[in-house]
């Protein structure tokens, strides 16, 4: 299977700041790839370089077998992080315009626009002005602009931001549908949970450097569970000697639920057995490491930064300036 995207030793700086450093990445055709990392990690920069909106200082980049995305723009669907609609334009006209810009002839364009509006529950909005739509509806309209031309490669930057749970699910379905159709999909998010639910591969980036690039299965396999959750039936059992169980490093109690932090190489099966014998429990569960935990583990381990600070960085909402701005403005 050939690769939809190949990145070799790419480096990009903005003034003194290195946005992306010696990056290598292969995205196989037909895969669903998640780009994860905190705000300012270099996700959008990488995506913009893939889209040939900005260009790397060093290294090679091939998109759909071409040296530049410009040569295959009509085969790529892109939903940028900074996105909007023409406020005064009618929804139908806007989508038709975008479809025409993506190389679809006008007759086909209108047919597809109407199909997509029905598919996303927006059929009533064809003649409405874009500004009359709610934010979530606008988001769906923007998504339609990126898939209307049935692209072979679909790049979605922070696609779930601002959607309610119902529309989140719809969006997941739509993305899955595109993937089933055969499209290669890359989506970036700083919310790692979204990535866990959707991707088969993840690509994790921190301060411009790749920290993980593998299938999600491999990630789970590689990063052993580190925490066992115990919820005793009786509150009085909380104080029992949980910390003395084999392999337990540390016990943390939160509202009657105990997190038993495990040592590396702890015998999980034996621990389960012993814990069940210690006291009657309502719940006993081996907690799989979340991507967030893994990220903090890797980054914290290598860079020596505090886990708490990293968690904050991850959870920091949108609105932080992107790396491109900070440097070129000053």
């Amino acid at each position, binding site marked *: 299977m050939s690769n939809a995207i190949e990145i070799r030793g790419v480096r990009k700086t903005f003034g003194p700041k290195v946005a992306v450093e010696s990056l290598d990445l292969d995205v196989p055709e037909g895969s669903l790839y998640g780009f994860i990392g905190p705000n300012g990690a270099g996700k959008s920069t990488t995506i913009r370089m893939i889209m040939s909106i900005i260009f790397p200082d060093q290294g090679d980049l091939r998109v759909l077998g071409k040296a530049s995305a410009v040569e295959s723009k009509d085969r790529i669907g892109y939903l940028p992080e900074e996105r909007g609609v023409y406020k005064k334009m009618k929804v139908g006209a806007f989508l038709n315009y975008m479809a025409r810009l993506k190389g679809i002839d006008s007759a086909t364009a209108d047919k597809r626009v109407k199909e997509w509006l029905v598919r996303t529950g927006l059929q009533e909005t064809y003649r409405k002005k874009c500004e009359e739509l709610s934010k979530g509806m606008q988001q769906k309209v923007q998504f339609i602009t990126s898939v209307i031309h049935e692209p072979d490669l679909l790049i979605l930057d922070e696609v779930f931001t601002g959607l309610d749970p119902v529309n989140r699910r719809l969006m997941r379905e739509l993305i899955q549908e595109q993937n089933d159709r055969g499209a290669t999909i890359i989506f970036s998010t700083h919310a790692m949970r979204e990535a866990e639910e959707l991707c088969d591969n993840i690509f994790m980036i921190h301060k411009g450097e790749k920290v993980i690039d593998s299938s999600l299965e491999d990630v789970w396999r590689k990063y052993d569970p580190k925490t066992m959750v115990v919820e005793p039936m009786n509150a009085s059992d909380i104080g029992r000697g949980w910390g003395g169980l084999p392999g337990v490093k540390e016990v943390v109690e939160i509202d009657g639920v105990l997190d038993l932090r495990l040592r590396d190489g702890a015998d999980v099966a034996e621990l389960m057995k012993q814990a069940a014998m210690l006291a009657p429990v309502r719940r006993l569960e081996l907690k799989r490491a979340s991507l967030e935990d893994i990220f903090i583990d890797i980054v914290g381990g290598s860079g020596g930064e505090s886990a708490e600070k990293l968690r904050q960085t991850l959870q920091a909402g949108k609105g932080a300036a992107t790396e491109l701005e900070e440097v070129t*403005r000053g």
Partner: protein
Amino acid sequence: MVKVFIIAWKEFTATVFTKAFILGLLLPPFFMTVAMVALPLLMNKKPPTVFGHIAVIDQSGKVAPRIVEAFSPEKVRERREQREKETKEQIDKAIKSSGLSEKTTGDIKKQMEANPAANMANMIADTNLTVQVLPPETPVDEARQAILKATGREKAEDGNASRLALIVIPKNSVVSEEEEKGQPVFGSYQLLTAPRLDIEVQSDIRRQASRAIVDTRLADAGQNIDRMRALMAPPVAEEKAVTATGDSKINEAAKLLVPGAFMFLLWISTFSAGQYLLMSTIEEKSSRVMEVILSAVSPLHLMLGKIIGKGAVGLLILSLFSGAGVAALIFFAMADLVAWQNLILLLIYFVLAYVMVACLMASIGAAVNDINEAQSLMTPVMLILVVPMMLWMPILRNPNSMFAQVCSFVPLINPFVMVLRISGSEPVPMWQIPVSILVGLLTVVFMCWASAKIFRIGVLMYGKPPNFATLIKWVRMA
């Protein structure tokens, strides 16, 4: 390239098919038409006939009969006919001195005759005035009470002709009572009028009273009145400008108006189109639709499409207004004021001027987040906007001065200067036209290059608005 035209078409329709644009474009010609049709109709309507009498207190005892005679029906009709004849002669003279061809002037005359509005005499109110001579010893204060009663009305309520004016002629205004350096000195006379008396009637009364007094003085001195008047008539000057091609009678006003109109056309179309471009770029920036568009087209193609689209808007404005202008000139049979080559040059200079302004506007629009931030970067655009207005008069006065020639090769303003010069009265040296176009082209190429760079970086830039130094940095960086 197809995409560039899809963008251009969208940009064109997004501006042109809006109520604001259609109204803004159609309203001025609409009002002009209304003014051209309605005004003459209104002006052609005669003011109401003025009824009333003029009271005269003649303390000299010699002038009153002359005033009575001046307002006799025959004399009034005579004066009106004389007035109409003079107006016609003045119009003829104005047309002749415009320097237009025989055929054209003939056409104008025909149209003026067909148009009753041109008959200025129609503007004068008909009068039905009588003169009432009061005894010379009548107190002025008592006589003026009657004027007060007539206030605001030309016909008194009791049906009697109301007193519209009172002329008081002291003896010393007719008979000199003192001398200065051997010449007689005369006193003044009083003219008291009703406050709302028709202004034409009022000045007629003044003229007739003054004339009656002067005639009386001449008669007293034993002179022949008609002969004296003939001797005193001011002679007419026949003015001609001396040029190499022969004496020219070109009208000064036309000389100034045609280049002015040309530059105004260029100015209004360039800057309206530029303004539309700025607004649409800022809108794409601030609504964040920019990168969505860039997912489909390259920044350069987007900029190109936008510039072409709004340029078409400018061209539409230019052709509508200049079309209306040419139509008006043809209607008034003055089309030979404008040479067709100049219209083609106007088109060329429009393209040059517009692309320069458009590059500036596109760069500014791409660099800022909203219209307020754009204000601070608008200074250079404002300069290009204001300078042609300042150059207008000096260049028109002397289209081939060193100053005008130098300005013709200064980038950014040279299209405006050249348009002024080519439509002016003196022919521009032939080599200067292609050279100025070349300068314009070089400027356009440079501006496109620089603004493409600024545009490419600016469109994705949000946050603190850049200043000029940053823009220059972007040009060097990319």
